[in-house]
């Protein structure tokens, strides 16, 4: 099965086709089915025929907002389908001055969470042929029969601990919102890492980061990595050595993570894009946790009007170095 619910796809298509065909937008960023039924990839729709391909199912994980960076150069007005994380990503771009609000129409999609193919395989004990979903349960069809599982157990990591599945910003909300989700394990791994001794932790990251190919897929997927020339590519000065050594890999990952301090919207796209499964979210979340502890609760991308903690000064900001 490809489409979770024919009715809801139709509803999305109906909403956007008026605007696209009526000329209110020049381009719609949505999803279409990929090579396999368990893949949905970005759709760049300009016509009615394009819209026929629209998909809205349990595999639309790709964060579409980041495509605005390129598309707005060629289009005056773009429509984007936004889940919770895509909407926060949009706010990130807005706050970084990368887009103007009036250039974009946002169609909000409260998100049920996207499924992880690897988990389907694991649950089914083999390559699944198709799935059907019903009341929070997923029936996975395999060659030998059927397997049933809780939908929540099959979610992508990034969706498991997603606190804001409803879009924080939109022009039109296409389904009813579900409210803030209670997440309990968001910082669990970070806490475990914090428990380690410095040597243990260094060892852990040395091992994880040694796999990094420096393909920069993580950066390309990230809504905060909107720089025109990333530090890794600069020649003068050359911040980042080209060699694939642990120290150079560390350099890239520390700097990338720090560049997200108070800015990472916790969409998990970096980690999902990584071909060698480096747990980037653990780095990002460590900084999210630190920011919350030092400057009070701050969730990047929720409210573009709220001043980012690292770009503001408050007299009661912590100043460990000058404390009595």
């Amino acid at each position: 099965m490809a489409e979770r619910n024919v009715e809801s796809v139709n509803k999305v298509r109906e909403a956007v086709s008026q605007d696209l065909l009526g000329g209110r937008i020049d381009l719609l960023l949505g999803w279409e089915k990929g090579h396999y039924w368990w893949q949905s990839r970005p759709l760049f729709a300009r016509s009615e025929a394009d819209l026929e391909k629209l998909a809205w199912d349990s595999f639309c994980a790709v964060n579409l907002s980041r495509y605005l960076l390129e598309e707005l150069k060629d289009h005056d007005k773009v429509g984007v389908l936004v889940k919770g994380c895509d909407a926060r990503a949009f706010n990130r771009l807005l706050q970084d001055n990368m887009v103007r609000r009036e250039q974009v129409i946002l169609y909000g999609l409260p998100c049920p969470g996207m499924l992880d193919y690897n988990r389907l395989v694991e649950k089914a004990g083999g390559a699944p042929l198709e799935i059907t979903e019903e009341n929070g349960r997923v029936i996975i069809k395999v060659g030998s029969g059927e397997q049933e599982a809780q939908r929540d157990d099959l979610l992508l990591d990034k969706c498991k601990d997603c606190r804001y599945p409803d879009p924080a910003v939109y022009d039109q909300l296409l389904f009813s919102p579900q409210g803030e989700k209670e997440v309990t394990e968001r910082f669990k791994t970070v806490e475990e890492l914090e428990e380690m001794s410095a040597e243990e932790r260094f060892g852990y990251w040395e091992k994880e980061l040694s796999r990094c190919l420096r393909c920069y897929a993580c950066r390309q997927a990230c809504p905060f990595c909107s720089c025109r020339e990333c530090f890794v590519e600069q020649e003068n000065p050359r911040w980042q050595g080209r060699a694939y050594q642990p120290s150079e890999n560390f350099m890239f990952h520390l700097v990338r993570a720090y560049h997200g301090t108070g800015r990472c919207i916790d969409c998990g796209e970096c980690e999902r894009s990584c071909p060698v499964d480096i747990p980037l979210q653990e780095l990002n979340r460590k900084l999210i946790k630190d920011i919350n502890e030092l400057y009070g609760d701050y969730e990047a991308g929720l409210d573009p009007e709220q001043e980012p903690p690292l770009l503001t000064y408050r007299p009661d900001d912590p100043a460990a170095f000058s404390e009595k």
Partner: protein
Amino acid sequence: MPRTGVFICHCGTNIAGTVDIDKTVEASRNFPGVVHADEYRYLCSEMGQDIITKAIKENDLDRVVVGTCSPRMHENTFRKAAAEAGLNPYLLEVANIREHCSWVHKDMEEATPKAIALLRAAAAKAALNEALEAPRLDVEKRALVIGGGIAGIQAALDIAEAGYEVDIVEKDPSIGGRMAQLEKTFPTLDCSACILTPKMVEAAQHPNINLLTYSEVDEVKGFVGQFDVKIRQKARYVDPVKCTGCGICWEKCPSKAPSEFEMGLSKRKSIYVPFAQAVPMVPVIDRDSCLYFRKGRCQICEKECPPQAIDYEQQDEIIERRYGAIVVATGFDQLDPTIYGEYGYGQHPDILTGLEFERIFNASGPTGGKVVKLSDGKPPKKVVFIQCIGSRDKARGMNYCSKICCMYTAKQAILLKEKVPDAKSYVFYIDVRTGGKGYEEFQRRAAEEHDVAYMRGQVGKIFPEDDHLVVRGIDSLTNRNIEIKADMVVLAAATVARGDAPELGRLVGINSDSYHFFNEAHPKLKPVETHTAGIFIAGACQAPKDIPETVSQASAAAVKAIGLLSKEKLQGEACTAEVIQSDCSGCLNCEAICPYTAITPVEIEERYKDGVLKRTVAEVNPALCQGCGSCAVTCRSGSINLKGFSNDQIMAEVDAICLQR
């Protein structure tokens, strides 16, 4: 390749005692680009400077590195020496091998390679130095004084006397500050109002002084010589031009509120002047208690005012002015002792703070100058003074000594004896501190001639019993428990910074210590300067102080301001930031971070495919930029360079240290 000369200073034995100078000179000769290296005992001396100047000429040097003390000390000296030889002064680089090396190490074996590494880094940086020009800037010949206590008044008078215009911004309806609240002053016991009022009047009448009372500073922009300040003059609801200060309005006003000036011990009217000698003698209406503002009925003051000065429609007014210099003199507060439950402050009317007791003595105070208990109106026969409430208390309060309490307690005990001859005073103290001319003698007099019992010890509990207060403590010299049945208790509550000091500091752009007292630029050599050029501090906003010290500091701040205002032109900052606009993504995080609002967005056009694309990028206004570098480190893509400290210069230094090339 540059032609760099390296000069290493012994600084007597300060550097040479820990760093092997000969080895360092030898090593320097091998740095890339170095064509000359030399050393001297005191490079900052005239002889030392000559050595540099001569060497530049003789060896045709185009870069100079000096290995000396911190650039804060002598960078200017050496830049001048380089300029003397015709070199642009910014082509000289200082390697700090004293504070960063010889002073923090003991072992010559370790310190020498470190000094060499620091010099190698400086030479690598110098190779990339560029000639820079400092702009020359105008000076607005006017000063702003924030706070109209004795510090602010004195500073303003001195600046005005030197012939410059001064505005005093005072948040309260009258100038005068804490000194106006005091009865008599130690160590000479002259009446506070008698010596303060003439100064207040002089300030009000001085042709060069402009009083902005009931006003606050909303915004400070700009920099030394050209501070652009927004001042909010709060609505008084009284027209100061028409008002004659006759007092009919506050006499007739039917509504009352606790008096701030009397520390809440008595009431004032809703239209009021804070005290009888207020300057200016123009009342304000307190909106929160005024019947007309609260309920829309009353307007008695309006009806009664002979010159019809009342104006309920008055609005806050914003005044925008430019100043060349600013003196911050916002004074202090007393700690609220309710946080110390054992003293029972706030639970009983006869447990007072020192400042409240000042008001009890005062003829215009809540008791009309009769020293009586607020509970029953009878004179107190036994008064217990407790020192160091919140001061010198690392665990629960302030680490520091409030400095004035020992003296005003002795003063109050003497005054008590004068007013209530059969009264007996007890002082619980940790140490009695009386440094100052005539201070020790004054305190001795209290102890020996005015029946004041000084007891070294601490009070653990105060509670009411029958018609008195039981004070239980311990005498730490004899370790005996003490119990005194007192009529009144006076708490020497700690002198603390004003609650809004951090906010004001941020607004003005000066920093404070962890207790929110404003920081001087150097504790010994720059006591009234701040780290922000053109902003000076005076009085108790810097640290606890008595009046003589406050006044001296105010005059010192005034001299610094006058020196600045008397300059025709100021030298601006040469090391300003620069945006590499082709790399800038226009996120404007740098704009948000810049403390001097020197960064603004601009639109540029770029070729894109067959046409042009407009996009926003950041731009630095070099006249506003102070070279703090905040933007450079905020820019993720490294698209900002601070001239003189560019990204590649810093990286060259790091490489020179790490790669040991």
